[in-house]
């Protein structure tokens, strides 16, 4: 395999948490080096907040901070456009707008960006998009196809392994709380991770609504809402139905002001009954006291119910 001197930067935010295996294996297969921005910290959030408009959600602010951190550190930064994965399978408008948004914000930086466009509503599937991505990096079409298929296989295997890990946790003894959140929020080390860390330190097993079999979850999600058009939300809806009998409580974790969550979490609180639920909205506050009070009391209430406080 020939190694090119090109390096591609991957912002550690948003869809990175969903596609990191797909991306890293694809580039690795093509002999292209990748650089990943560091874990989110206060500086990244602050830099991103300066770049974003006020109405942007916390996750987008974090994303822009990661892009900023990669400028001048690599030849290209990968900013994909993932718009639609089929009927009733749209992505949040942020993911449709990212390449244009970033291009515009960093137009004077001299940084080059790389993109691919997945939009099933315009009959552009993921494989086609990755072939074009390969072409942009001067890879032979055959090579790019092989790299994509290897990467896709690795991604599916990785996800399957994570789902199996969740199944095991489901059968463990102890208090279990399901977190319904986007992967890029719950896995972000500066924001969402504080929630899972706290739960673990309190002796609770955190489970994830988004770590389930995706096809099955998409179908089951229809039971809660036949018209919900957001892919990631539908997965979470299905994940909740799949896991609710295994858990003692559900935390709806959302980044302020997430559009899809504002609607879908309302739907969840109205339609999922019989299980304690905590609605937690994270903003860029540095203090964690408010969040801890809510988590601590939520756990107490569940334990009190079981007479174990």
């Amino acid at each position, binding site marked *: 395999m020939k190694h090119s001197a090109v390096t591609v930067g991957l912002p550690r935010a948003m869809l990175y948490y969903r596609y990191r295996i797909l991306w890293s294996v694809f580039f690795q297969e093509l002999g292209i080096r990748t650089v990943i921005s560091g874990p989110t910290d206060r500086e990244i959030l602050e830099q991103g907040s300066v770049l974003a408009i006020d109405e942007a959600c916390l996750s987008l602010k974090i994303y822009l901070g990661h892009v900023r951190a990669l400028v001048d550190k690599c030849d290209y930064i990968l900013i994909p456009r993932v718009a639609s994965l089929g009927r009733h399978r749209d992505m949040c408008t942020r993911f449709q707008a990212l390449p244009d948004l970033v291009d515009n914000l960093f137009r004077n930086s001299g940084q080059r960006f790389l993109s691919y466009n997945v939009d099933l509503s315009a009959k552009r599937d993921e494989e086609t998009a990755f072939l074009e991505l390969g072409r942009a990096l001067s890879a032979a079409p055959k090579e790019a196809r092989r790299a994509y298929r290897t990467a896709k296989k690795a991604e599916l295997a990785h996800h399957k392994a994570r789902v199996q890990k969740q199944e095991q946790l489901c059968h463990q003894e102890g208090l279990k709380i399901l977190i319904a959140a986007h992967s890029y929020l719950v896995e972000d080390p500066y924001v969402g991770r*504080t929630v899972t860390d706290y739960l673990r330190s309190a002796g609770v097993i955190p489970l994830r609504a988004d770590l389930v079999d995706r096809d099955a979850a998409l179908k089951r999600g229809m039971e809660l809402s036949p018209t919900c058009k957001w892919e990631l939300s539908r997965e979470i809806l299905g994940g909740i139905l799949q896991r609710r009998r295994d858990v003692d409580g559900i935390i709806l974790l959302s980044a302020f002001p997430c559009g899809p969550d504002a609607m879908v979490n309302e739907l969840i609180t109205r339609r999922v009954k019989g299980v304690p*639920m905590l*609605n937690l*909205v994270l903003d860029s506050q*540095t203090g964690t006291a408010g969040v801890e009070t809510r988590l601590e*009391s939520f756990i107490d209430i569940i334990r009190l119910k079981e007479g174990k406080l």
Partner: protein
Amino acid sequence: MEHAYLGVDVGSISTKGVIIDRENNLLASQYIWTQGNPIGAVKELLGLLEGQFDKTKYKIVATGATGSARKLVGTILGATMVKNEITAHAVGTTTFYPDVRTILEIGGQDSKIILVENAVAVDYAMNTLCAAGTGAFLSSQAKRLGIEVEEIGDYALRSTHPTQIAARCTVFAESDLVHKIQMGHPREDIIAGVCNAVAANYLSNVGKGKKILSPVVFQGGVSKNKGVVAAFERALGCKVIVDPNGHLMGALGVAILAKKGSKRQEFDFSVENMDFRTREASCGQCSNHCEIICVYRGDELIDAWGNRCERGERVH
């Protein structure tokens, strides 16, 4: 010597303390304003409690701290139990009202609803990080209208035509209120409108989707406001119980929790004469720049918190 238990609840607006005996009888109780100085308030509180307390007959064997300053106060008091205020309120209320089904609570910056079945909390909700419709809103509106916050209830009950105030968001409520004042609505009608807005706001935000069953117990500082109580009774169509000690329920709950807990540590009132201070240190170990709070007794560092990782433990 008989055993007694101290419970202290330091909220954003008020500081509450109780001492109870084994049977949960009140031996001493006090309610004062926090005035932005939780350490000073606790010391003052202890002085007042000490005056009501028979030290020859009882000794305090366990201490609980709750409220938003529970960590700080727990450190200063050497508390054996530090618990969040929701749990403390649930425990306190179900001890005194075992048949309660719904607990409404509105404090200075938080509001919550706790649903109870068979004396056990089964569900609850809390305001999101926004403080809309809490005591802080009422006191700032009282100030705007030139009356004491304690007088709001009496004014509200005198009104026959409460003014409609937009209730969804405090910011909108406030601008609506200013507009209504300028339009010439009588003061008591506006105050009654504010009370209705607090109740309506609570029911549509915190109480949203919750089945509110009777008996309903209302507590927290705002429960002392007769106007809001009347507004809740109208909106819910049932009697709303306000315990004379409702404002002390968090302190009572945490005292009971301290009693039930396994730790024992005799409490010494001399802390009220000790010098405590806090200092904020910024950790420079990484770009998170965590704000670490260090608590000193005299010159001795007794506790610190606020760091996100273990690197912050070196910064004191």
